């Protein structure tokens, strides 16, 4: 009798916990709104453009030819090339605790005022506490635009090259 009671109670408890877990998951409407198209034709060199995707700020930085020329291979690997221009497109949140770093045009870097973290113009961390580069969201290049939330060919190549991890 005790075992039967235990089994029934166990099934009930697992079911209830599963339902509780699932009801805290993001809603379908929240997930469906996860795609954003950004038109890159308006971008100006070395001027930070901030867009929004999944509620998060997206940094779009068109690089000048001089900036591209000076880059290391590691930095160039993170460039997204659209119509011959190199862009940094990343989630504009510090990978430490999620504050928004500010772009300093003169120094060509990002500074997070909250905890002092710094990133270069390719979003790679140059000063702790951030432990990793700013995240490049899934993207798909279409003509002069990128669609965020969609995994395009260039994104997959970056992933395979280990740039994203």
């Amino acid at each position, binding site marked *: 009798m005790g075992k039967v009671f235990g089994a029934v109670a166990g099934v009930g408890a697992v079911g209830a916990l599963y339902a509780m877990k699932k009801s805290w998951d*993001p*809603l379908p409407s*929240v997930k469906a709104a996860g795609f954003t198209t950004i038109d890159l034709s308006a971008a100006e060199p070395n001027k930070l453009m901030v867009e929004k995707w999944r509620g998060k700020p997206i940094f779009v930085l068109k690089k000048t030819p001089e900036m591209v020329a000076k880059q290391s291979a590691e930095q160039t690997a993170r460039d997204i090339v659209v119509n011959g221009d190199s862009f940094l497109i990343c989630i504009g949140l510090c990978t430490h*605790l999620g504050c928004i770093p500010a772009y300093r045009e003169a120094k060509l870097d990002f500074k997070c005022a909250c*905890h*002092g973290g710094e990133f270069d113009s390719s979003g790679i961390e140059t000063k702790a506490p951030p*432990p990793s580069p700013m995240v490049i969201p899934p993207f798909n290049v279409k003509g002069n635009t990128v669609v965020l939330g969609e995994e395009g060919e260039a994104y997959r190549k970056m992933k395979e090259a280990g740039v994203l991890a």
Partner: protein
Amino acid sequence: MAHFTKATSVHDWLNQRLAIDTLQRVLSKEYWIPKNINFLWAMGMVLAFTFGILLVSGIFLLMYYQPNVDTAFDSVNYTIMREVDFGWLWRHVHAVAASVVFLIIYIHMLTGIYYGSYKKGREMIWISGMLLFVAFSAEAFSGYMLPWGQMSYWAGMVITNLFSLGSLEFNGLVEWIRGDYVPGQAFLDRFFMLHVLLIPLAILGVIGLHFGALRIPHVNNQDGEEFDFEEEAAKYKAGNKKESKVIAFANDFLSKDMFVVSIYLIFFFYLVFWHFGFAMDPINFDPADGLKTPPHIYPEWYFLWSYEILRPFPKDPGLVAFGFAQVIFFLLPWFDRSPNAVPASRRGLFFFWFWAMVIDLIVLTAMGKLPPVGVYSLIGKVAAYAFIALWVILPFITRNEKRV
């Protein structure tokens, strides 16, 4: 069924059905309190009172607050503050009480540490008290979200990001907690639920446990003297009130508690009416904006010390240090190896440990508020290391302590 007789009075009618005389005897008239305890022991009553104030003012705020990302900010800053008669009073009372409650909790905790009130059978009092501290922290954090200002939003962002557990990158867990990719409607609604129902319910339960944990080991006293409560109580009941080392909680000790509570309430309402601003961050008077971080994010004063333990380190070690700071106080009864439950002033090295800890917490708090640059960053780092070092040396300095 019990035998009921015709009631002779309302009191008798209730007594037959609810045993109110027995309850009163057990809970107050024969609940024994040592005589030699000072005003610091009244902090429990002060806390109970402040919790009551938070509950009542919270209920009044709840009647006009709207947990919606588009209307929450205005429902607090316009409707409650300007339209509702005395709405400003409830808000200021609630905000000041939420801040001051931590001041009293810290005094209560440090009193317990100074007098060794967590030892010798009183471990459960300490643990349930620490559970209350954690529950109050969660309550304060969830409440801080509700006005949906810039600090609400970004504190929500930062604190929920902690659950990604650093390099483990548990982003799924973070999104599950938020119900969204960023703090949004789902986040606000569920923190509203936590703040007004689930956590207060848990707090009430743990308060019950905390009080219950006192019944068997009884309250410690100023000299750490161990005496037989039953014997002392018998003396008191026999009329030898002067010789007895205990007095009844009600109405005898309660009158002293209430005196301290009265003094506290004067201070409390002085803050509510003239200095309510200290409990409100100016940045939180800007509506939440997910595309603009305030230049300097910091928590309310009562979380600064643990925030400063997180901040000066790289991400993962910072999280480990932060986790350490959150749980280590729970283990105090076992880190302190000495058998003495007496005031720190009579315990040798522990006395210096206690004051070093107090000073370190104050330094951490001050550095947590300042921007993390230059010498502040360095002092913060040293203080964070000192905090950890103090805990590491505690078992060693208390192990060889002389028995007093």
